[in-house]
Each structure stands twice: as structure tokens, then as C-alpha cells.
């Protein structure tokens, strides 16, 4: 496996470094402590990485068997427009997740957990840089509405939490529990997208995926392993991070993660264009099965810590009995475990958008009863957020008929903030031709 590394043109590389100084302020701390927390690992590189030797024929779709495309001009206008949107959305998620993590990373109770998340953030920065390479290394002007590469970079770097492309990246974290659950749930969707895109008919995109996937594997571990440790501690009576708190974070992120797959009924274009190898529902189904496995694993960790003298087979039976009976076993209740919410729970996009369906699949008719139900199942700080207020307002309009379901979908979330330029006084843009204005900053 050979990988070619590429550095962006100086002004773009500097723009990303500038953005990083504002949004990933512990970057230098991460590099200083890299050897302590990641001994003998390859040093971090802010660069684009292109896998060499990948297949050069299209694997799926209408062009299966043909040579992969190397330039946007070799795609049809519709294909290029579609792919450009995917690349820009991907870039937005990478920078957006860094902004989310940054808000609560200092609240980590364990230094190792904090440095794992810092590494995740640095690698997301590299993934955003990778997408910039795709945007800047070829001419997309025929399908970008006249927007030049520089403008697309500026646009993405100017986004803040609230103005990113996908909803999951527009919600702030309420605590470090969100840093970890986000990695376990939302990065997992990222893994699916990157895996599907490995077959991309546009070769530079396909070649970008394997290095990103290798890094994403650690991001998932940076979610699941701390969740397992927290479950163990919770089983032993730890008061700081409870199973209930973890469950509420799962309830917050799981619906947004499902919506990242797009509408359950869609995805045909990606398949026919040869950009991905699965439609949305199929990918989402597999994801749900995988999250179910993860939750079972965390519950087993909990039970084995609670009943250390019991063999694994007995704990498995206890888990199965608790799930089936919803009862109790030696002081452990069904409610003490983590549960996968119904896939229609708290959805505002896709097939079940705006339905009031609980974590256990039970439907609600009355909005106030529904909102009270949500207040018991979502993190308290999140209930006090603007996003929840807007959700409730939009829901009332959908239920009353003032909005159609489609109207409601288009309304969420609109948390755009005014002004996305560099917050430092020396620059009005992220990308500057004259680096003298950033010297010493």
C-alpha cells in the first residue's frame, strides 16, 4: 500500500493553518504530547494523502467497466454537480466536527480521553484539507455556479456551528459525553460514507478514501472504548458519568446520524453515477445493526462489571432476559442499560420526518405530551437550546397543517449566525495572497 502525500498551494495551506489556530487551539499541545499518548505512531501530517494502485475501472452503476474519471470534465454535468455537492458537504462535516469538539473538550475527566479526541480533531482537519485538495486540484467552475476553488474554500472555512451543510454538525455538544458518543455514532456514519465512496467513479475521490478510512477506524475506537470504560464505572456506582447520561446523548445523536444517510427512499443517483455502492436505506439498515452490536457490547461491559463473579454466558442470558422482560435482575433494571432508540424517534428529515414516535416505537398524538416525553429522554442542556425551541415551533406548524412535512424539513435547522470571517482583526478572509498580514498571528 503506497500513499502519495500532497501539500496545498501555500495560500490554502496557510488558510487551513490559520483556521486551525482559531478552532483547534490545543493543536500544539497535541503535537507536544504526541509521543506520550501515541508512542511510536507516525507523526501527524497536515497534508492530502492519495492511495496509489486503486482500481482504475468503475465498479458500479451506469458506467461500470469504464475507466474511472480523472477530471470533472470527464463527468456529465449532472454527475459533476452531484459530486461537487458531496465533496463540499464532506469538507463541511470535517471542519464542523472540530468546532463541535472544541466546545467541550476541556471537560474531559481523563487526560487520555482528551488526547484521543484531540487526535480525532487533528485528523478531521486533515480530512477537510483532503477535500480542499479535491476542490482545488481541478477546475469545477462549469458546475459550481461560477464559484472558484478559492471561494469554495473561503465559504467552507467561514462556516460555523449552525451553518454547516448537515444537521448533525450544527448542534453543539452539551458535555464531554457528547464528544465521545458523537465519535461512536456520527463518525460511524462517516465510516459508511467513506466506505461507499471507495468505489467512486471519480478516481481522485476514490483514492482519497483509504487513508481517511484508516484514520476513521481510530475515531470509532475513540468513541466506543471510553463508552465501555464509563459503563464499567457506572456499574460500580460511579456518579460522574451514568448510563442514563450516556443514553440521553445516544438519543440526541442517533436520529441525526440516521439522517446523514439521506432520505431512506433515496440514493439511486449515487449508485447509477458510480459514486457509491449502496442506496440510502441499505446503508442505514447496516448502520443500525452495527450500532445495535455496539450497544449490546457496552451493556455486557456493564453487566460483567456489576456481576464480576458471573460467567460471560450467564451475563449474556441476563442481558437477553432483561431486554425481553424489561424486568429486573439482582438490582439491575432494564432501564439501567443502554437501548437503541426506534429509528423513527425524534426525526425531522427522511421518511419518518416529524412523526412523534418514542424511543420504544410508541406514537404520541399530543404535542405537549410529546415535548414532555422528549424532556425526559434528551440531555437537559440540549432541551434548553435554540435547536429544540426551533424544533418545537416547527413541529407545531407541521401538526397544525400550516407547514407540510416538506416545509418542516426545509426549515431545520436554520441557526445561521451572522459573519463567518476570520475573527482576528488582521484579516477579512481566511485565504490571503499576502501572508505578511498573518505573520506573527
Amino acid at each position: 500500500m503506497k500513499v502519495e502525500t500532497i501539500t496545498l498551494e501555500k495560500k490554502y495551506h496557510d488558510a487551513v493553518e490559520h483556521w486551525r489556530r482559531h478552532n483547534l487551539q490545543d493543536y500544539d499541545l497535541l503535537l507536544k504530547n504526541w509521543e506520550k499518548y501515541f508512542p511510536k505512531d507516525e507523526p501527524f501530517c497536515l497534508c492530502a494523502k492519495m492511495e496509489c494502485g486503486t482500481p482504475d475501472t468503475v465498479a458500479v452503476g451506469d458506467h461500470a467497466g469504464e475507466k474511472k474519471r480523472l477530471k470533472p470534465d470527464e463527468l456529465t454535468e449532472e454527475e459533476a454537480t452531484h459530486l461537487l455537492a458531496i465533496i463540499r458537504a464532506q469538507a463541511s462535516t470535517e471542519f464542523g466536527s472540530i468546532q463541535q469538539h472544541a466546545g467541550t473538550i476541556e471537560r474531559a475527566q481523563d487526560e487520555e480521553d482528551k488526547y484521543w479526541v484531540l487526535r480525532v480533531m487533528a485528523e478531521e482537519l486533515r480530512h477537510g484539507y483532503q477535500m480542499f485538495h479535491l476542490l482545488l486540484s481541478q477546475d469545477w467552475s462549469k458546475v459550481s455556479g461560477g464559484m472558484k476553488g478559492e471561494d469554495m474554500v473561503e465559504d467552507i472555512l467561514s462556516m460555523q456551528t449552525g451553518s454547516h451543510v448537515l444537521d448533525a454538525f450544527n448542534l453543539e455538544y452539551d458535555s464531554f459525553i457528547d464528544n465521545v458518543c458523537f465519535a461512536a455514532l456520527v463518525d460511524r456514519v462517516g465510516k459508511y460514507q467513506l466506505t461507499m465512496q471507495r468505489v467512486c467513479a471519480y478516481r481522485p475521490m476514490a483514492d482519497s478514501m483509504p487513508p481517511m478510512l484508516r484514520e476513521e477506524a481510530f475515531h470509532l475506537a475513540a468513541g466506543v472504548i471510553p463508552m465501555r470504560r464509563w459503563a464499567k464505572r457506572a456499574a460500580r456506582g460511579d456518579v460522574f458519568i451514568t448510563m442514563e447520561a450516556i443514553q440521553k446523548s445516544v438519543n440526541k445523536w442517533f436520529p441525526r446520524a440516521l439522517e446523514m444517510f439521506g432520505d431512506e427512499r433515496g440514493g439511486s443517483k449515487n449508485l447509477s453515477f458510480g459514486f457509491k455502492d449502496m442506496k440510502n436505506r441499505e446503508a442505514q439498515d447496516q448502520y443500525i445493526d452495527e450500532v445495535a452490536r455496539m450497544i449490546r457490547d457496552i451493556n455486557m461491559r456493564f453487566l460483567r462489571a456489576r456481576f464480576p463473579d458471573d460467567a460471560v454466558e450467564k451475563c449474556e442470558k441476563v442481558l437477553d432476559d432483561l431486554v425481553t422482560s424489561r424486568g429486573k435482575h439482582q438490582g439491575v433494571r432494564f432501564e439501567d442499560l443502554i437501548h437503541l432508540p426506534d429509528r423513527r424517534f425524534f426525526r425531522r428529515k427522511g421518511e419518518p420526518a416529524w412523526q412523534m414516535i418514542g424511543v420504544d416505537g410508541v406514537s404520541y398524538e399530543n404535542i405537549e405530551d410529546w415535548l414532555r416525553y422528549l424532556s425526559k429522554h434528551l440531555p437537559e442542556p440540549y432541551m434548553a437550546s435554540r435547536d429544540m425551541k426551533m424544533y418545537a415551533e416547527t413541529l407545531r406548524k407541521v401538526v397544525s397543517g400550516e407547514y407540510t412535512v416538506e416545509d418542516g424539513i426545509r426549515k431545520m435547522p436554520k441557526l445561521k449566525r451572522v459573519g463567518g470571517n476570520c475573527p482576528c482583526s488582521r484579516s477579512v478572509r481566511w485565504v490571503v495572497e499576502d501572508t505578511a498580514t498573518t505573520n506573527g498571528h
Partner: protein
Amino acid sequence: MPEVQAGTRVRPLDELDLGAITRIDERITGQYRPETWEDRVGYYLRRDPDASKVVEVDGKVVGFMMGDVRDGEFGLEEPSGWIERFGIDPDHRGRDLGKVLFDAITAHFASQGVRTLRTLVNMNDKGVAGFLGAMGFKSSSLQALEMPIPSNPSAKA
């Protein structure tokens, strides 16, 4: 000659295999060591997630093999593929699953340009030593040495 079971699949290890790996280790050693495996899996996933493998039979993980490429240690400048931890569920032994894992991890190391595999083994563990010998490992001129630290190290000087 044992044949590989139908329904067998080898794939890269991922973070959701922790439960299965811990369970296999528990069956082999009698010890429940989830923290040990959380450390090791986290380590291998961040270094090279494609290297370490698991083998599934009918969808259930029944074996694992962990390793990575290292260089620069003990004068070994050329990259070597190190095989560090592995285990097969006792109920699934004798079916060449260890070899299947070994072949997969070796192929991965070879794809990275590695020419030599290395490992350390306790020769008193006849099972592990026998398996590694069957795979082709031989004694190396590089030898593992150990000694206890004297209770008063400065007295030796």
C-alpha cells in the same frame, strides 16, 4: 488435513470486536481482562487498522491476530511485521483458522513492502510455539534477554 470451515471470513479487526476478543482470551486464559484488550485494540487501530485481523465462522468472531509494522528498534532498521497477540476459541481449533489469520496478516505486511516477520514466544508454551513453528518461524540470532533489577542497582557500579 483439517479444512477451513465453510462460512469462514477473515476481515480487519474493529472496535466492536472487543467483546469477542475478551471472551476468547477468557476461554483460553481463564482471566477476564477487558482493560488489557481495550488498550491493545486502541493501540493497533490507531497504528494500522488494516493489519490486525479477526476470523468469523457463520458471523461469529472465533479468532484474532494482532500485529503491526515496526522499524528502528534494537538496530532493526528495516521494517518488520510483528505478530504480537493471537488466539482461537478452543471450540474452533484444529480447523486451520490460525493459518487463515496468519496468511491474511502476512499478506497485509507484504503489501507494505515488509520482507520479514518477527515475534517473541515463550518456548514453554508448546501450543503457541508449535503453531509459530508450523507457520515457518525459526529461531533468530536476535535473542530476548531478561534480568531482574538488583535491589540496590548502584552497588553494582
